[in-house]
């Protein structure tokens, strides 16, 4: 199980007086999908560039497939595929010509290039448009062409910076399916995103970035437990003057917050929906809605930055 492909310890990056990345530790295993989350400017892209050796580290150590990316950048980049944020291609060339250029740069043996290219095009579903100019491609097609490069290189690690930004829901779903199939091929995927709901569905583990530090790291449910302290969240919509008072008196409810007019959020030690319903009806309130909240990444994220607003 423990076969780390990326290890970073105490990673620091300073631009003059500004500290972009302030002591980050990350370990990413082979065949897992790892999400880097955080607001813009939290240092996600800087971390990615340091992992690739495209930016020098100020302090700390990085090992990618066991190699130091600043000392052996060629060996590292040969085994890592990278898709930058808003990936660009040479618009006047066809998709096939673009990919062929990448293949030559990547040092793929000449006789293998064409065969590997057609495999890559098939994997991302661009086989039919491979000979069209990239200038005619939609944003989703460009992102898929970016993924095709990773298959072309047969990379062991795929680093995707904001792979789903600016895509429509359909294209996002397709792209996430492709990312899953990368994982199925045994590729470790590191992706950064702010589309939390989507990331949740595909990531095995996530790291929440804040001001150049990893604020939280783990699976989504681990993060939820950390942020919400293991509380069960229940949402109540009810009419009546006594509602807040009634809700607070129910055994098992630790805290009540007002979300909107007549809508409340309850932090409970366990699922006490039946007790709440009974108490409200007995208290003469009109119960309109009662549901258990799934702890989504979106909630964790919002909650975390609500608590650390002064810090963020």
């Amino acid at each position, binding site marked *: 199980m423990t076969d780390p492909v990326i290890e970073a310890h105490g990673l620091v990056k300073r631009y003059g007086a500004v500290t972009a990345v302030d002591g980050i530790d990350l370990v990413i295993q082979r065949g897992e999908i790892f999400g880097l989350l955080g607001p813009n400017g939290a240092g996600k892209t800087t971390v990615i560039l340091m992992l690739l050796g495209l*930016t020098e580290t100020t302090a700390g150590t990085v090992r990618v497939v066991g190699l130091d990316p600043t000392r*052996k950048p060629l060996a590292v980049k040969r085994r890592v595929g990278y898709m930058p944020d808003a990936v660009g291609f*040479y618009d006047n060339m066809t998709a096939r010509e673009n990919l062929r250029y*990448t293949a030559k740069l990547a040092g793929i043996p000449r006789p293998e290039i064409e065969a590997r290219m057609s495999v890559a095009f098939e994997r991302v579903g661009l086989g039919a448009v491979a000979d069209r100019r990239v200038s005619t491609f939609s944003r989703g097609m460009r992102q898929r062409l*970016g993924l095709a490069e990773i298959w072309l290189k047969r990379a062991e690690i795929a680093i995707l910076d904001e792979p789903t930004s600016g895509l429509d829901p359909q294209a996002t779903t397709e792209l996430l399916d492709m990312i899953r199939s990368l994982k199925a091929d045994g590729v470790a995927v590191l992706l950064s995103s702010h589309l939390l709901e989507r990331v949740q569905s595909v990531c095995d583990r996530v790291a929440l970035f804040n001001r150049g530090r990893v604020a939280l790291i783990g699976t989504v449910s681990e993060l939820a437990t950390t942020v919400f302290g293991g509380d069960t969240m229940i949402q109540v919509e009810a009419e009546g003057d006594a509602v807040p008072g009634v809700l607070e008196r129910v055994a098992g409810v630790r805290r009540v917050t007002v979300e909107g007019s007549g809508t409340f959020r309850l932090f409970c030690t366990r699922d006490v929906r039946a007790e709440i319903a009974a108490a409200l009806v007995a208290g003469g309130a009109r119960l309109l809605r009662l549901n258990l909240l799934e702890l989504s990444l979106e909630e964790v994220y919002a909650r975390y930055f609500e608590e650390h607003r002064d810090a963020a």
Partner: protein
Amino acid sequence: MRREGSPWTGLGAVFLKEFADHLSSARMRVLEVLMVVIGVGTMYTAIADIKTLTTSDPFLFLRIFTGARESTLSFLPLLSFVIPVIALGLGFDAVNSEFNRRTMSRVLSQPVYRDAVLLGKFLGGLATLAVSLTVLWLLLFGLGLIRLGVPPSGEEVARAFAFLLVALAYAGFWLAAAILFSVIFRSAATSALCTLGLWLLLTVLWPRVVEFVVDAMSPNDVARVLGIVTVEQVQWQLALSRFSPNVLFYQAVLPLLEPSTRTLGLGMFMPPEPGVVPGAPLSFLQSVLVAWPEITALIAAVIALFAVTYVVFQRQEIRA
């Protein structure tokens, strides 16, 4: 900290792509038309001049390049004007266009060093210029053969070929300058303007500046009014004016195309040494020797500019 792996990895791929891009671009079409127009146009003025010559000239063929008379339409002044324009046109968006198309980080995430990307771009541009200049050169030779009906001697071909190489070095200077600005400025328009500015400064303004400085060195007002210059002033004028690559280019090709040129320094204004027949031609190798300091300076300037570009590019953030 040492990095491992060859800096040349991927150089061939970058070079071939850049070369192919240049050759298939619209700029190249313009370049082709320009070359033909220059070739044919200067050829006819040169031939018309040559026909008025009455004395026999052992290097008649080289007159195509220099023109028998001083004329703005003759080949050399036109070429010294056109080469920078073409080189600027090929280089001004070499690096910043990769950033603007957001392809730079993708290219650099492949197993290549930045060295290969920069050098590949420079060599791709230089190869394009070499093709254009060689085409022009061959065009002049072909037209010359047809119109003059006199085949060039072996020495004339050698001199003309050396001229071609010097012209390429001159083109390399402006290409390196254009690429430097394309590394410094992310906007292609700013880069183009700055390169044009540098070109104007060095070719148009610099001679005026030199004139001004030399004039200020005049020992007294009488000498200034009468236009009498001291030896010191002439030396300064020569030294300062050579900061312009334009002047360097002229001085480097003059001994090659005018075999009677014996010196480019102060000696130009001196009576010939005893035993020297004025106007007698030097051998080819002797002419190369006369031009050698200028040729070296031109090539050194190209290398220096490229080195500066390299350092600036290595220090750049690739966040794009």
